């Protein structure tokens, strides 16, 4: 396609001054505000994680008190879940690329978009305020299970309100995206011609919209219970703690698909671009996103197999859980089939996508161990669950997040990072990640419980391996981010389309102008991934 060479003003330079950023309605600038905020919180959360691993280096007390340890794993969970991983891909890359991929100039409600960002900021301030106000951050775990969350003296109220506000930020982003996808597609782009990243955002947005309010009201009930002392959930004053668990997981299980689906969307973009080949099974991938979103609503009970549930209910929840594996593996097989006979160029984003598949496979299969009734009784609340969860969330979504950052980096900043350093950082990251989390799976099978600050001497070896892995992981992340920061400032200028992608965001300038496009974007003939020079398989 032709790229005109007229000079233009990038969205960075269109307006100047701090206020033009803080009150911007431009989806690209809002995305970058999110990016800086979210990466900062990721680093805070990661530091807390490192502290925990350091404490677990040896049995007994190493550096922190047990109570502090409880607060640290809670804050780690709250920050990583609500401030990093839920908003990460939708709020940053969704905001930046959804309008570009649809061939429009903004989301449907630009002001609402800014409001979502400020709700995020307010929620984040609430979460951080627990450090200074009251008796310190909550020590309940990020699940805020009643009755302990009603009784503990720590600042649960504020943490819970933070999650409530962040929930509304997430709902409004989802609402905005659904309307954008319905109303602002470029002429000629039917639903079945949308890029797969857009499909995954669409599925995610529906979950955000329909699941988040349930946790919102549940958390308000916790607050009311703490303030007025009426037992909805605390059995000593007549409540039912299991009811809380149901309400909590009705949201929080679908929420893990809020975290995972956009990551799958990113992988579905990266793989066809670097294989220069039409995606295999476009519709299968698109609809499996919707299927995961749909089935994901009905599996929450699998978090509660050990907390008292009738046999038939447990069996049904278990079967439904296994059903989720089907659309997920449909995606994996389609990605692999896309690579088959493609003209593959191995670049950093593709490495991240492949690592996603590898890690997510381990995470997904260990998930089935948790989902099977008998096996779950053995591994429930052990370190195995922690390992499983980090494999899907960090190994899956985290890798896809950094993959997306490397994939779209030249589009966002118009510069290219040092690929050798990026590949080195990636390799270290993959090794470090697996050294950090695989031992957790083993420890869990051996019987080490989760959320304990101490352990029996026989667990020492694997714990030390894991802590060692955490050091590799953190060094690789520092190396990766340093490489990207340097590239953002001084990297080599790149062309508008360095990866030879054909989705619409590659048809405009890098970085794009405020209006996104300087001429009408052209839809590729025969679908969004129909690469003209692809070898016919």
């Amino acid at each position, binding site marked *: 396609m032709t790229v005109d060479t*007229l*000079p*233009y*003003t990038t969205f960075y330079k269109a307006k100047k001054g701090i206020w033009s950023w803080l009150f911007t309605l431009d*989806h690209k600038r809002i995305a970058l505000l999110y990016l800086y905020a979210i990466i900062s919180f990721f680093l805070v959360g990661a530091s807390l994680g490192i502290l925990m691993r350091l404490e677990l280096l040896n049995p007994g007390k190493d550096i922190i008190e047990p109570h502090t340890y409880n607060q640290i794993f809670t804050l780690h969970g709250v920050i990583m879940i609500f401030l990093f991983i839920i908003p990460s891909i939708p709020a940053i890359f969704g905001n930046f690329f959804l*309008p570009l991929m*649809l*061939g*429009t*100039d*903004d*989301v*449907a*409600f*630009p002001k*609402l978009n800014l409001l979502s960002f400020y709700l995020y900021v307010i929620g984040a301030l609430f979460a951080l305020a627990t450090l200074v106000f009251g008796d310190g951050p909550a020590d309940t775990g990020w699940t805020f299970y009643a009755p302990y969350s009603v009784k503990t003296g720590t600042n649960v109220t504020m943490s819970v309100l933070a999650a409530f506000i962040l929930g509304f930020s997430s*709902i409004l982003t989802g*609402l*905005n995206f*659904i*309307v*954008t996808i*319905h*109303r*602002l*597609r*470029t*002429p000629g782009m039917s639903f079945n011609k949308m890029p797969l990243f857009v499909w995954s955002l669409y599925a995610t947005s529906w979950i955000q*919209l*329909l*699941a*988040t*309010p*349930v946790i*919102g*009201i*549940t958390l308000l*009930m916790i607050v*009311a219970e703490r303030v*007025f*002392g*009426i*037992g*909805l959930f605390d059995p000593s004053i*007549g409540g*039912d703690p299991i*009811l809380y668990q149901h*309400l909590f997981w*009705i949201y929080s299980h679908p929420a893990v698909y809020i975290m995972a689906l956009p990551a799958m969307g990113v992988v579905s973009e990266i793989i066809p671009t670097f294989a220069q080949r039409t995606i295999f099974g476009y519709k299968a991938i698109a609809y499996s996103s919707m299927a995961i979103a749909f089935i994901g609503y009905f599996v929450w009970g699998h978090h509660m197999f050990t907390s008292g549930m009738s046999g038939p209910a447990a069996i049904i929840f278990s079967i439904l859980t296994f059903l989720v594996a089907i659309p997920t593996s449909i995606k994996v097989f389609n990605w692999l089939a896309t690579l088959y006979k493609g003209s593959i160029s191995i670049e950093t984003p593709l490495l991240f996508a492949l690592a996603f598949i590898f890690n997510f496979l381990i995470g997904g299969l260990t998930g089935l161990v948790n989902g099977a009734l008998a096996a779950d009784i053995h591994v429930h609340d052990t370190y195995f669950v922690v390992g499983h969860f980090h494999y899907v969330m960090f190994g899956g979504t985290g890798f896809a997040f950094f993959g997306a950052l490397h994939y779209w980096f030249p589009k966002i900043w118009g510069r290219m990072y040092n690929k050798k350093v990026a590949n080195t950082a990636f390799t270290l990251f993959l090794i470090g990640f697996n050294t950090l989390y695989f031992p957790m799976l083993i420890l869990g099978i051996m019987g080490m419980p989760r959320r304990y600050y101490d352990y029996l001497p026989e667990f020492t070896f694997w714990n030390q391996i894991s802590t060692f892995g955490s050091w590799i992981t953190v060094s690789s992340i520092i190396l990766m981010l340093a490489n990207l920061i340097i590239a953002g400032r001084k990297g080599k200028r790149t062309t508008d389309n360095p990866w030879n992608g054909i989705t619409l965001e590659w048809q405009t300038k890098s970085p794009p*102008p405020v*209006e*996104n*496009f*300087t*001429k*009408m974007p052209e839809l590729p003939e025969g679908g969004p991934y129909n690469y003209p020079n692809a070898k016919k398989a």
Partner: protein
Amino acid sequence: MDYSFHLPNSGHNFDPKSSKLGMWLFLYTELLLFGGLFLVYMVYRELNSEAFLLASFKLNVWMGTFNTLLLITSSLTIAMSITALQKGNKKLSINLMWLTILAALGFLVVKYFEWGAKFEHGLFPGMDHYGSLPLGERLYFYLYFFMTGLHGLHVIIGAIFILFVIHGVKKGTVTPERFSLSENAGLYWHFVDLIWIYLFPLFYLIH
């Protein structure tokens, strides 16, 4: 350098269909927000059906009925105001919206007296009499205050929303051609009404 090029599908266009779709999606969220409470109500009603029945006798059915009538009437007036605006009769539309707000205020005043009476009897969570009630009745009143309170908050928000529309009509930003804000206020108001239509039988009527 400035381009005169504009995308036809710009996010900055005025698009009534977008705002209406957005409003509907928002109402789904609101519905599920109340949904959590309805679920809790269902569970505890099932577990304590007798206590819930006894406690429900302490509510004033007449006040509840009056409020129900007020809200249903206000749904009628807001719907009429939208039609009036679409037909170009701004003055009638504004008056009908004021009527709606009046009904909202009436609802809140009645609610004030209803809640006030409960406070006098010490039925609010944390008060003396409340503490001496059997468990099921305590849960009933807790849910009563929580759910009608949250609903009352929505009445206030809805009324403020309608005030904005009145302001918009006067200023000329909401016109017979651009009426989606007024339609959205109407949708929201109907939703507030609808929630009450469920709350009323659940707390006052079921025997």
